[in-house]
């Protein structure tokens, strides 16, 4: 931890609420997103907001940020009551929001994204370029990550974008930092560092409102937890009175007990075999085999090369050496078309830029992969087949919408993720690569998605799951491959490794991979 910017410590306000929401309600075109929600956030407090997908969390946050106006209810910040809260007011009162879609400027560099807001908010007319780097570096040091400062944000990974957004919020003199699923792509190491920083700023009276579907994170960081279901507050209480299963129960209204994948080993020919695959600067000498019915997990920290490996298998990233065999035959996967031709499907990591067509309807998003098969003999689209497929997947994945003809951007984050999954599941690939398949999906639905994935495997599909979610990997996979600095650092058969052991191996990778931290 180096040179932190000094933040004002409003000790005298410690006892009073920083933010009070009274009886907030909001509906969108007949959907009641929030129903009579009240919330109090005190200085220095970490308040977590949990609930299923579409329960209204992001809507509540947008109301606090002044981006969405509630239908009724009032907002009190710092003792000032706002009839109509504008985004500028919220920012002036010290509210910093990291949105689910981290609204960064894609054409600016990492350093500019972090530092410019800070300068703007100080009414600096002429940007002091010399300071830009310094401010950005200080913020990055604070959470102990290394990022190239002069790279355009557009070209960096989701995890790095999230880190940039977090840094940007940290350099402001915020009184309340709101993180709406801002940690989905981060791995153990970054989360640890982030939580350390959060605890530090809490000491100085900064409040944190944290939304996440990763319940262990919630239990670790929260002082108070508010659970909402279908827009209503179910529970708002101290974290001490909650545990994982209680949280799940309040969120979903049921107990969730997930069974591990009952894989029965076969000696069938592998669907996919990778031999000594290397791509310079990305990964090196990767070998594994994937048999029908197998679910192979791939995990590793940021920069371990796991996403790059997936991109190479899908024909996006060229390989330098090594072999890919499909059904025992050497396959030349030179582009996405040929990957698809070989029966490979890929659910990408970054749903906003690689997965979704936000302005297009939910149904178009679902059928686009398979549209060539939904035709009548004459070659024209068959409306009934298209509708049948849309209806089937909306039901199968419980996509929460009242009209699939609405644009995909009207869905909540977790539901958008399901749309991307539906698109690929509908195409029935023989080898399916899932990169973060349940990112942003709530616990209850996660289990349902896992069940669907397991069923696909039971039908003989080979599945690769890339994830940081250790419990997810343990439920889903029969084998787990740990990557470290572009290489395979270990392969574990599921029954032989426990959650604790795997986490330990992962963290061990941390200290070796990034000694400087």
């Amino acid at each position, binding site marked *: 931890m180096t040179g932190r910017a000094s933040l004002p410590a409003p000790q005298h306000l410690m006892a009073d609420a920083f933010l009070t929401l009274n009886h907030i309600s909001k509906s969108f075109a007949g959907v009641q997103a929030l129903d009579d929600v009240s919330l109090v956030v005190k200085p220095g407090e970490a308040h977590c907001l949990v609930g299923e997908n579409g329960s209204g969390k*992001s809507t509540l946050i*947008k109301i606090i940020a*002044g*981006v*969405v*106006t509630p239908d009724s209810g009032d907002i009190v910040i710092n003792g000032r009551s706002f009839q109509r809260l*504008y*985004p500028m007011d919220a920012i002036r009162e010290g509210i910093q929001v990291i*949105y*689910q*879609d981290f*609204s960064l400027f894609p054409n600016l560099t990492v350093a500019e994204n972090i530092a410019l807001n800070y300068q703007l908010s100080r009414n600096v007319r002429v940007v002091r370029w010399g300071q830009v780097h310094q401010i950005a570096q200080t913020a990055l040091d604070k959470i102990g990550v290394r990022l190239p400062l002069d790279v355009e944000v557009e070209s960096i990974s989701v995890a790095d974008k999230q880190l940039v957004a977090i840094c940007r919020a940290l350099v402001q003199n915020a009184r309340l930092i709101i993180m*709406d699923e801002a940690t989905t792509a981060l791995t153990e190491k970054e989360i640890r560092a982030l939580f350390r920083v959060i605890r530090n700023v809490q000491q100085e009276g900064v409040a944190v409102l944290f939304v996440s579907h990763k319940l262990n994170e919630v239990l670790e960081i929260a002082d108070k937890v508010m659970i909402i279901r279908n827009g209503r507050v179910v529970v708002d209480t101290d974290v001490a009175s909650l545990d994982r299963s209680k949280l799940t129960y309040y969120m979903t209204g049921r107990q969730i007990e997930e069974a591990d994948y009952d894989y029965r080993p076969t000696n069938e020919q592998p669907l996919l075999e990778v031999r000594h695959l290397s791509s310079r600067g990305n990964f090196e000498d990767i070998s594994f085999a994937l048999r029908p019915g197998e679910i192979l997990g791939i995990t590793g920290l940021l920069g371990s090369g796991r996403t790059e490996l997936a991109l190479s298998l899908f024909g*996006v990233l060229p390989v330098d050496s090594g072999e890919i065999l499909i059904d025992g035959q050497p396959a030349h996967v030179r582009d*996405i*078309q040929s990957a*698809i031709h070989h029966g490979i499907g*890929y659910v*990408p990591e970054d749903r906003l*830029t*690689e*997965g*979704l*067509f*936000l*302005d*297009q*309807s939910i*149904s*178009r998003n679902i*059928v*686009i*992969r398979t*549209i*060539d098969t*939904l*035709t009548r003999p004459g*070659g*024209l*689209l068959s*409306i009934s087949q*298209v*509708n049948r497929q*849309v209806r089937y997947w909306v039901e199968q994945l419980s996509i929460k919408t009242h*009209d*699939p*003809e609405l*644009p995909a*951007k*009207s869905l*909540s*984050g977790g539901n*958008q993720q399901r749309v991307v999954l539906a*698109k690929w599941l509908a*195409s029935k690939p023989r080898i399916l690569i899932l990169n973060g398949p349940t990112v942003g999906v709530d616990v209850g639905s996660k289990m349902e998605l896992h069940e669907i994935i397991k069923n696909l495997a039971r039908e003989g599909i080979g599945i690769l799951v890339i994830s940081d979610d250790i419990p997810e990997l343990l439920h889903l996979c029969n084998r787990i491959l740990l990557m470290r600095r572009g290489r395979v650092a270990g392969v574990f058969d599921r029954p032989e490794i426990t959650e604790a052991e795997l986490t330990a191996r992962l963290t061990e990778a941390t200290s070796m991979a990034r000694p400087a931290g």
Partner: protein
Amino acid sequence: MSAPDASYKPLPKARLALDGNLLRLLIACVTIFVAMSLLKPDVFPTPENFLSMGSQFPEIGILAIAIMITMLTGGIDLSVVSVANLSGVLAALVIRALIPPNATDGQVILGLIIAVAVAFLAGAVAGLINGALIAYVNLTPILATLGTMTLYTGLTVAMTRGNAVFAENRLTFIGTANLLGIIPIPLVIFAVVVVIFAVVLNRTSFGLKLYMLGSNMNAARFSGINVRRVLLMTYMLSGLLAAVVAIIFLGRNNSAKWDFAPSYVLQAIVVAVLAGVNPSGGSGRIAGIVLAILALQFVSTGMNMLLFTISGGQFFKEFAWGALLLIIMVANSYSEGRRLSPRHKPKTD
């Protein structure tokens, strides 16, 4: 903000409610029509005037469809008129070469079929070249087609030494005859093109891919859409539409020349933009093109009638088009602005 076409599930109420742009265009169309009919009751709402208006706009309408499909992919085709002139000159040369003055009916028909085929072939090839420059060489559409526009025009000049090529009165029936005695043939051609493209865009997988690609090129690639092939196809279709326009030009003027109707490119863009086609791709509807071209035609004819007596009145066409474009754009941006105001902000997460 115009909603994407209802490509499969007809949801009349939702569509109408969503598609404010189409509604505004319809209102504009009807208002102008009614206003002109009231102001000039003896000349505007008459069969003769309908006939005359109906024969005036088809070329620009068809070119606007070419602009629209390229805009749907987030691109544009500035070369349409130069492609039309190239195709027209080639067709006229074929007619001269294959149909002697004393030709038999059989020779005439065969000659015309070959001439039209050559025009289409030239349009398709020119379009494929545009598509290849954009899809494979990765040029920006605006620069690529600006370049080929000059190239195709130069080629046409070189072939004709800058002179007009006469088509020996072989195609003039297109410009003069009326189907069933009342419907001008160019209008019939326009209607056929409209129907074909409404089907292609809304009822084929190619059409869906076109919209998806325009709305997120990267996601399209990751969804396995063959982006290059779709782009190639799109620009080829645009070239074919230019060839259709070439045949109409030839029918009307009995000749083709390298510098015919250069202003049509900009006018076609105006129609497409007025129609609500999003220049950055992903949304726009054929129905919008039809309404936009009608509104513009009513305005320019009406203005001509109103200002006929004033000297320079005919120049008011451009003025009226510009005014209509601005009015509709302001109306759109106003309603969009309201939708984007905090209360109505669409969600983006």
